[in-house]
């Protein structure tokens, strides 16, 4: 899969741990930057920089609300990533479903003893 430069590539944007944390927080609802700063315990310029990267790839959008700017997750930019990993994820889901069946059988055997 071809990759663009870091800041324009949703894959890389999401791979950065701090940005994932920001997405986790925003996934629960809109937040102003001050709230993100407080919850992450990071300096505001650092949070702003991450938000800028996320906005550049379309993973986060922003709206004005009075004097505040509220950030939220925009799922459209993330969908290609979901699509890309879903086949591999399905493989593991099936595999681990089958593993669970094996484990359940072992558990029943052990309990019968």
């Amino acid at each position, binding site marked *: 899969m071809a990759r663009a430069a870091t800041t324009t590539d949703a894959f890389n944007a*999401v791979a950065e741990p701090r940005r994932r944390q920001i*997405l986790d927080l925003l996934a629960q609802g809109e937040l102003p930057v001050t709230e993100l700063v407080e919850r992450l315990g990071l300096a505001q310029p650092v949070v702003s920089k991450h938000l800028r990267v996320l906005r550049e790839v379309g993973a986060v959008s922003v709206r004005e609300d009075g004097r505040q700017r509220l950030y939220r997750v925009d*799922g459209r930019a993330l969908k290609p*990533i979901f699509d890309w990993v879903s*086949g591999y*994820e399905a493989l*593991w889901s099936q595999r*681990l479903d089958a593993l669970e069946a094996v484990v359940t059988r072992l558990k029943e055997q*052990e309990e019968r003893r």
Partner: protein
Amino acid sequence: MTSTNRAAQLTLQADDQIHITREFDAPRHLVYRACTTPDLVRQWWGGQRGVVTSVEIDLRVGGRWRYVMTANEGFEVAFHGEFRELVPNERTVTTEVFEMPGVPPEQLPATLNTVTFVEAGGRTTMTVLVQCPSPDVRDAIIASGMEGGMNESYDALEQVARGLA
């Protein structure tokens, strides 16, 4: 986090890693056993993608493993590697190489797979960390799981979404 937490969750926390986690309603020594005993691995490793035809496991540090599966589409796929670390019921670290016909094994990229088993209240969380030598290898591995997977399940999509977002 919701309670429909049964399906595997896949997350991409770094561009050269894959994390897969899954919870089992069983103590960890049983999950470990199911992952390290040839006759048991044979029953689950293929998922619904094919029939596992051979499982060899030399369960000691430095020992080799090799799994072969005949995929539903008729072709054969094989993986092998070496045990690097073994803590019974807790953790295995192995290398893993996908065998490509005509390519010498030493030229194929190996991943380093760390599987941990954590038990709490009789339930076990199994985590698979696939450390790839490069982002390109990571991408290739994920792309290799795409066949037959695209239309398979929007549930899977949702799980991934939950892991990523």
